[in-house]
């Protein structure tokens, strides 16, 4: 079992208080810079000391604030891949990996180093210095070095690692992996669990796709990149028809019935930009069609982002935008099933 409960105050404004379990496989830690992500890794690795809490890795207590147990970093068997390049610059990539295997007998050390380099495609570049290696190769070498020490827990900071390498690392170790990243796509593809960190607290946890689709709070919705977050009032509730009527400052929507709320309650509603549909203003208005002037259209990597008045943002396919770009006026459709009441 790998479990951590960590408390630490970092002046001026961060007060970390988190508790989480790490199952085998990849757990992603997602949050803004400054929310305490790297601090959590430092506390787990033993590079910083929590004020309170307990760290249990593979059923071994590494830190217990109450019992005054604090195992030093070198005895923790917690591997780290740092955000900034931390390969020793005066050693070759092979020597970097060998450094992690110093306590092994000579023959075994050479065999293990060769195997690890080979498994990460570093055999040919093993004799080059880090400064002569490409960033991708350096990242692989950092992973090889961390894996060489046979960690019981592997910590990967936000170092721009791609999904393929994360998957490869996951295949090379049975240790739980805690991956700090700002890449939601990577969270969804590589991680089994997602922890969303907001100002030193875990705001939401769960399967990545669930968290992204169903954020629990305004903070999480904004963190996972949902631009459409509106505060409104419950104007009507109809449990029989399983519907509700929500009124916002500039428009009203029909949504699913909201359990646990009464008429007049103030609620936050979120909907992903990609879930909105856009129509020309001359089309007949349907359910949840909101007429709104287009403020700005911006090219994105895979779509066009349309920003309307009232803070409404929709992502549409390029072909769709090309078809509609000459609209004189616009209507935005909010599918009722995609509305998420926070």
């Amino acid at each position, binding site marked *: 079992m790998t479990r951590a409960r960590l408390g630490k105050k970092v002046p001026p404004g961060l007060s970390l208080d988190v508790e989480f379990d790490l199952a085998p496989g990849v757990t992603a830690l997602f949050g803004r810079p400054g929310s305490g992500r790297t601090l959590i890794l430092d506390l787990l690795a033993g590079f910083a000391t929590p004020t309170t809490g307990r760290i249990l890795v593979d059923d071994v207590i590494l830190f217990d604030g109450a019992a005054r147990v604090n195992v030093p970093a070198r*005895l923790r068997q917690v591997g780290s891949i740092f955000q900034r390049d931390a390969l*020793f610059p005066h050693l070759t990539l092979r020597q970097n990996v060998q450094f992690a295997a*110093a306590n092994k007998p000579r023959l075994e050390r050479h065999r293990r180093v060769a195997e690890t380099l080979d498994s990460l495609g570093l055999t040919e570049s093993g004799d080059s210095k880090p400064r002569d290696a490409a960033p991708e190769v350096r990242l692989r070498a950092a992973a090889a070095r961390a894996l060489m020490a046979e960690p019981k827990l592997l910590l990967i900071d936000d170092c721009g690692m791609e999904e393929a390498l994360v998957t490869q690392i996951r295949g090379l170790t049975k240790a739980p992996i805690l991956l700090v990243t700002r890449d939601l796509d990577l969270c969804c593809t590589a991680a089994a669990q997602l922890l969303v960190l907001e100002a030193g607290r875990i705001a939401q946890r769960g399967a990545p796709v669930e968290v992204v689709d169903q954020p629990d709070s305004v903070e999480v919705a904004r963190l996972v990149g949902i631009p459409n977050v509106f505060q409104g009032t419950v104007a009507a509730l109809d449990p029989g028809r399983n519907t509700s009527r929500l009124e916002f400052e500039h428009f009203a929507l029909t949504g699913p019935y909201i359990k646990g709320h009464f008429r007049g309650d103030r609620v936050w509603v979120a909907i992903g930009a990609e879930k909105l549909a856009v129509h020309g203003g001359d089309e007949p208005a349907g359910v949840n069609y909101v007429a709104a002037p287009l403020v700005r259209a911006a090219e994105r990597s895979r779509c066009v982002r349309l920003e309307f008045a009232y803070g409404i943002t929709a992502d549409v396919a390029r072909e769709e935008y090309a078809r509609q770009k000459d609209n004189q006026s616009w209507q935005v459709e909010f599918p009722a099933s995609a509305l998420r009441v926070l």
Partner: protein
Amino acid sequence: MAPDWSPLWLGLRAAAFSSAMALVLGPWLAYWLQRYAAAAPLAWLPLSVTPVLLFAYCLRAAQFRWAAAGLIASTFSLPYVMRASAAAYGALKPEYVNAARGLGATEWRVFARIAGPLALRPILAAAAFVFAVVAAEAGAVLILVRAARADATPAAAPLAAIAAVSLAIHYLGTRLERGSLG
């Protein structure tokens, strides 16, 4: 009368002795002292007294012994090299040391394999500066003392040679510090 070159050699030997002492002990002591920031000022304390000690020794000693002068100079050299070492360690990315610790390395191994080699240039430069200062100080004072005792004018050639050696080592140290050597 031929100039007496022995003060130059004695000064150089004292400088070599004190630099070697400082080079062997200084970097490790500085690394070790990083954990005890409160104790660090004590290590710098000898910096303020040792030139006086060295001058006093040169003036009073009937028989000048280079090893004794080197030992006295070490109390000045050691803190100087320690200070340079501490600054060099402070300039290292903390990830290097943390990575080494996380990979199971003892503090001695972190120092010997990672922190020491990465901070080698400024440490060697500090040792070179110390060598130049001690060689000039001990050699020049010895020449002046001997001349005073013999009631003679100090020979210019050994004094010039000491200055030249000191300048050359200073220059090498500066280049080493700037990374243009090696």
